[in-house]
């Protein structure tokens, strides 16, 4: 088991390295030197910035030096000093801006993942065990539609109905008084009151996909001889289904957790822009449109690293549960 974990962790290192390179390229992508355009922007707005601080920034990011020097400076800043760079637009260190937003994105994505499993697995199992029944057809149609309707469109529809029918504003994750408050039990409760709408919207797509996967995989398993044998031995049907074929049918489900996380974070980005949640989405969008690249690049880096870690954790859990994976060479 330890050998397995060690190997997986080692394999993760090149992945993380590549992720950091891609984020760095993203920071470099906008044409021109962002510091120059930033200074030019400030000057047109009538503000003046001293030459010394420009030079200090230039030195800090290694601008004008070869690309690899810039990369090393940026990376070592993050790894050694926890310095993610400066947000040009907010005039604050990136670190101060992103912490809570990342946390909220993670909460939103993880809760949605759990909710989608919680719905998809029982429904999928029911659909498979009652193949071609009316509920099965209804579920199939719903899951098809769920895959076809993009989350942000759903968010818009929800927002429209909330606004016109219920006269309610569904935007945001906190009530006014908790937005800038420090974390407390009340704030968590307040968040939970707001969180369920985006969670449900975000979970729709995953649930729909999940139902289809569970159903298809379980249908494959149900025809296998071991199920027949268990049935012949007189095992209780309910126990039989849940104990053997379901466990195998759910395997691909858990082994692609990394991809589910990636797509949840993607979906969460779009939905939170629509519902103006205090997650990474709206801030990243704004950073990108104003070419505040250290902020935007940091979001890309952290979100990708989180999915990589999420995949690792799920792989380890999977190996722990399933000896076939653990012992595989």
């Amino acid at each position: 088991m330890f050998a397995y974990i060690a190997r997986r962790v080692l394999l993760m290192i090149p992945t993380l390295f590549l992720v950091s390179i891609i984020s760095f390229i993203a920071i470099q992508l906008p044409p021109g030197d962002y510091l120059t355009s930033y200074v030019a922007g400030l000057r047109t707005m009538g503000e003046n910035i001293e030459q010394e601080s420009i030079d200090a920034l230039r030195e800090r990011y290694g601008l004008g030096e070869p690309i690899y020097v810039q990369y090393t400076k940026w990376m070592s800043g993050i790894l050694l000093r926890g310095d993610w760079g400066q947000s040009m637009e907010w005039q604050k260190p990136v670190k101060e801006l992103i912490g809570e937003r990342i946390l909220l994105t993670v909460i939103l994505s993880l809760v949605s993942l759990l909710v989608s499993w919680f719905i998809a697995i029982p429904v999928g199992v029911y659909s498979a065990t009652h193949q071609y029944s009316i509920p099965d057809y209804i579920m199939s149609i719903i899951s098809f539609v769920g895959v076809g309707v993009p989350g942000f469109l759903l968010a818009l529809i929800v927002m429209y109905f909330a606004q016109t029918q219920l006269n309610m504003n569904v935007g945001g994750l906190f009530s006014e008084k908790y937005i800038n408050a420090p974390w407390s039990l009340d704030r968590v409760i307040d968040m939970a009151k707001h969180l369920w709408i985006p969670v449900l919207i975000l979970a729709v797509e995953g649930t729909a996909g999940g139902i289809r996967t569970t159903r298809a995989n379980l249908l494959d398993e149900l025809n296998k001889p071991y199920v027949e044998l268990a049935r012949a031995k007189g095992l209780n049907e309910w126990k039989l289904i849940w104990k053997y074929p379901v466990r195998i049918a759910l395997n691909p489900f858990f082994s692609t957790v990394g991809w589910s996380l990636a797509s949840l974070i993607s979906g969460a980005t779009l939905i939170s822009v629509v519902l103006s949640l205090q997650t990474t989405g709206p801030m990243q969008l704004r950073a990108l449109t104003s070419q505040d690249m250290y902020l935007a690049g940091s979001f890309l880096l952290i979100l990708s690293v989180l999915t990589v870690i999420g995949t690792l954790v799920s792989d380890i859990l999977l190996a722990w549960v399933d000896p076939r994976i653990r012992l595989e060479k």
Partner: protein
Amino acid sequence: MADATLIKDQVESQALDDEIASGGEDVYVAPPWKLMWWRFRKHKMAMISAVILILAYLTAAFCEFVAPYDPDMPFIQYKYAPPTKIHIRDAEGRFRAPFVYQTTRGIDPVTAQPTYTEETTTRYTIQLFAEGPAYKLLGLIPAKTHLFGIPAAGEKQGVFVVGADRLGRDVFSRIAFGARLSLSLGLVGVLLSLVLGVLLGGISGYFGGWIDTAVQRTIEFIRTIPTIPLWMTLSAALPADWPVERVYFGITVILSLVGWTFMARVVRGRFLAMREEDFVLAARLNGARELRIIVRHMVPSFLSYIIAALTLAIPGMILAETGLSFLGLGLRPPAISWGVLLQEAMNLRSLVLSPWVLAPGLAVVISVLAFNFVGDGMRDAADPYSR
């Protein structure tokens, strides 16, 4: 000749399905594409969806003809106008050809929002192939005929089948024009992914070994990065002063950078399975060169799988473009795509006053579902020799 008519009769007969099931004689002589077609036809949703898609692409190709108005033309007197009601029964209860009443715009004294009331005294009949604004069909042939509309004299009254937006532009015309960019981007993006996917997936599956491992790791790596944040970052780097065509191409390339991984998986899987097949071995023993084996023997036998996978990949592309353009990072106005149109809905006032600005979303959902069904049908039909 006798065989041909026999098969034709068979195609038309309902007994065909049983014929396939029982493995009748015609099934043995039918070429693969015919078997695929027979099987695809059995998938009803796929057939319906295929028809919908053909209509959608025709609309995209001939959007100037389908749209009754110029999509950028603001009708100031129709700001936030709801979908025009089309009647077939007049005030006296007589049935007539579809027509609309004259509507007058007023201002609600309480909410200060525009209201539209019908006056049952004046009727305008909707004509098929009505004359309207001039355009060039396919950019070549000058024409004035539109699929439907109210004759030009009726400038006093418009027909807005899905309403008008906050500037008074006809939403239906805009959806029809949006189809051109949104639907074609899906196709172009998928074809570009296919080139990359076949190349890398083919290499990976054919050679195996460390090349295979390297390509597979790359694919896994790309799939771990959350796509929307990545696409957002990349497309934000497209210069703001680029013309529409270049942005379009840029977005397509960005989407394909991730899209190829799905294609590569399918191609690799097929290659691996086929490498061991007897007919490949036979060709090799006959002294065929590697390239010939691939092009002449392997490609034809997995082409159908690729086409099915392609079809299933298009919805992802359409959704991605819609999402990006919706965020303002994809195609930008004055370009019209479904995502660009949905940006209207980001404006809460627009959304509340004219919920029909969400209609382009319906177009997205319908085409995505249709592609999914057609893709499913194709996948089932891809291997006509399996049971």
